[in-house]
């Protein structure tokens, strides 16, 4: 019985793995190893699998759990960077040639955004969710999501780009 459940769970997970991985990688920066975050999220999702109402909502189901996990961690931990003890979880794994410095800088800048803007940017720009879907995940209005996206982009521009931005 458990094996069947695991099989079904993984079959549902496989198509959304890439999107979920990117999201966790971005959310985990400065907090923890993103693989741990993915594993923790999957474990909880597996336990609550029966409560999933629609297979189509599986990815947003995972995102919701992940967001709450990070939110709870933020209350307890602060970022530690210690070269001497070789805590290198925050270092991007650059073993693959496709991984560029620019993308990693982008993720680090996203990590500096306020939580709502950060998640909206990740879900919309990286994971390809619509504004309507993001509004449902965060339980806010679509106009609120649009504002978060706009402000998030302006802030990213200030963090990453050389020229200052004149916002409206």
């Amino acid at each position, binding site marked *: 019985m458990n094996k069947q459940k695991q099989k079904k769970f993984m079959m549902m997970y496989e198509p959304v793995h890439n999107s979920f991985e990117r999201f966790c990688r971005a959310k985990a920066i400065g907090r923890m190893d993103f693989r741990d975050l993915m594993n*923790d999220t999957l474990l909880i999702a597996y336990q609550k699998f029966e409560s999933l109402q629609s297979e189509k909502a599986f990815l947003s189901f995972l995102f919701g759990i992940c967001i709450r996990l990070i939110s709870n961690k933020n209350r307890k931990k602060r970022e530690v960077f210690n070269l001497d003890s070789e805590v290198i979880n925050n270092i991007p794994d650059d073993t693959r040639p496709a991984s560029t410095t620019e993308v990693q800088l982008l993720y680090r800048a996203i990590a500096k955004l306020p939580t709502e803007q950060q998640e909206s940017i990740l879900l919309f720009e990286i994971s390809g969710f619509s504004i309507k879907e993001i509004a449902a995940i965060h339980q806010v209005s679509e106009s609120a999501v649009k504002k978060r996206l706009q402000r998030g982009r302006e802030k990213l521009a200030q963090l990453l780009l050389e020229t200052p931005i004149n916002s409206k």
Partner: protein
Amino acid sequence: MMTNYNKELDRLFELARQEEPKASFIEIRNRFHQTLASGFSGTVSHWLTIHKGWIFSLTSFSLLFILSIIIIINYDYTSERTISEDTPPSLKNVPIKASTLPINHNQDTFSPKTYLSSSSSSIEFPPTPTNTMTIDVSRDTSLHTLENNSIILLSSEHLSDKAPASTTLNQAYIKKLKPQISNLENTPVRFTINERTPTNQLSNISGLARRAGIEYTYVVGLKHKTIQEFNVHMSIPGTTHSCNIQVCVPKKERFEINFGWLANSAGKAISFLEDINIQKAEPKNTLIPTRAETICHQYQANGISLIESNFNSYTKGIDPKASKDALLNTAGYILLKQDSVSQAIELFKLNTRLFSKKANCWDSLGEAYYRNGDYKQAKASFWKALSIDPKLSASKNWLQKIENK
């Protein structure tokens, strides 16, 4: 109309979307199954049903860790432990034999142990409670004949995996050492006077000179408590040794005089120092290169802890507008230029401890790690620099260089 920054952000987002995942589906699936197979799921589901409000904190990484510890405590690892028979002996609590060696010895036939046993110029050092050894070559007069790149050998009986079989003295160290060796019996007494030296300090020097048997007279011209004229005459009675110093600087100009004498073991002056120099003081920020050289010499002679404890004294006189982190940064690059990479790393590490929020310090450390072939640590340093200043193009370029390797 889209602004330029929107186009650039869109480009970056597109790059991110196209990026291959770092963790494959198979990797995550296997890890997930392993976690379930360890019996974790049963425990967690019990907690989940009873403590709904604590669901997410209890299933966090910390709980996984705690459960792992419980499992480990109950497992007997003794039978699996192995102790290496090849652990090399340490330097602790054993006498060390050292000697110099010209660099052009025959490396094929040379035996350090035989040489040290027979060498008349080898010296023994008593046991120390630590695993490191500082060789003071000034102890033995036979070591006065140090040539450039002389090598200090340690006895092969006492080598550890950390101690080198031989170490090469660099030229800067030898140059510094030779004047000390020649003046082993006499103590230099030095003073530095600049335009802000207080008058009571001038009186103290006068008193010290007289106690050293020097006929000492001086004249000072002050304006607004700043020395603008300083004349001193010194002579040692019964000898031909004498010294005259005259400084007269225009208003608001700066100067520095270094002078003194050699004293014998009784404290009496026997001659005046030959390196007396008078100079118009450089603008404060140009003190950095010369101070950095001083730091390099003192670090190589006495170790990093002295540099750390005396750091404030090194920064005295430096223009307040200049960044203090530039001092160790410059010193580190001097050592890099000398190919003393591991020493440069230590200095850069100290700089990051003192100025942890300066991106440039981390960038320099990364560069030193890169030179040392330690790309992991280099990447960590560059990323730290970028976390402080995301626009630091030097660190971005270094990271790209590592990626291209």
